């Protein structure tokens, strides 16, 4: 009853139980945090637009992405994986989501950022559709600003926060930059 083995066993059980309770509390405390992330994406230019040998259209664009995701970090947050996806519909597919850029934010200090980049991954569709989306809009000699809003995924088991995402074309007169 008072042997070393018995005492070690009960100590270990107690320790594991406490650990489990603490993990559960940490997970639960995540619900108390209401994140309010903000982000903005601008497509500065369409660099090129070509047809690949396999018949798919490919677009390359330069983007400005800025975001403030600091409110998403709690003490239970391990990392925030942020990615930019273009979401659109085509005649063949009711929904397409293509990831253009992603990054990992390991800590709160890095969560406020601004980056100027071309799309990290090639933006192609399964078949050649893009000329309908883009070609007709750029051919009118106006720079179109596509509002691509970031999807943000949170890296903690099972929890995701999603912002609205849209690929929208706004026809605007571009005054200076173009």
């Amino acid at each position, binding site marked *: 009853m008072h042997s070393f083995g018995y005492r070690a066993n009960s100590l270990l059980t107690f320790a594991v139980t406490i650990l489990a309770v603490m993990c559960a509390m940490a997970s639960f405390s995540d619900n108390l945090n209401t994140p309010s992330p903000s982000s903005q994406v601008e497509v500065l230019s369409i660099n090129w637009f070509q047809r690949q040998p396999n018949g798919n259209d490919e677009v390359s664009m330069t983007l400005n992405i800025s975001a403030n995701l600091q409110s998403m970090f709690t003490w239970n947050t391990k990392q925030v*994986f942020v*990615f930019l996806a273009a979401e659109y519909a085509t005649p063949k597919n009711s929904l397409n989501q293509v990831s253009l850029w992603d990054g990992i934010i390991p800590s709160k200090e890095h969560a406020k950022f601004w980056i100027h980049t071309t799309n990290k*991954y090639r933006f192609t569709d399964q078949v050649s559709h893009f000329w309908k989306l883009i070609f007709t809009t750029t051919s009118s000699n106006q720079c179109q600003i596509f509002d691509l809003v970031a999807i943000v995924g949170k890296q903690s088991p099972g929890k995701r926060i999603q912002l609205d995402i849209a690929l929208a074309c706004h026809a605007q007169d571009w005054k200076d930059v173009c």
Partner: protein
Amino acid sequence: MGLIGESMDSIKTLQIRSTLSQAATLGMIVASALMIWKGLICITGSSSPVVVVLSGSMEPGFKRGDILFLRMTKDPIRTGEIVVFNVDGKDIPIVHRVIEVHERQDNGEVDVLTKGDHNPKDDRFLYPYGQLWLQRHHIMGRAVGFLPYVGWVTIIMTEKPIVKYILIGVMALLFITSKE
């Protein structure tokens, strides 16, 4: 002589009884472990509800040796989700993130492309030759929870099977010599 014979008989029957009851207990433990495993498969909807992360391709999020809990629902697969899939013909579960989704208009089936966070390129080099996309039936589940480091036990036992044999041998020895 008769007395010795009698006591020998009684000792033998005692030992047989205790051995049988030990075997029955062992059988109960194995059976209940199997029941729990099959029950988990039913509840989570995934054919493999717990997987071990085998490579460092999802660092820093998931490291080699982490255990992942999976769940498969009928919800549509969308970019950003972490999924576990098997390529045709291989039994190794791969844990990566979905980066492209194309959902067809007519039948609702999806073509999915995945990539490990730490990998520079997408997973097309992992898919069999000629296969460009994953379909829903390749995907075993989404990651909904994780435990760090616990998976190292499985990794060591798979990669160095001698450890497995030693462990089983020690357990069998302890079992036989225990007085209960």
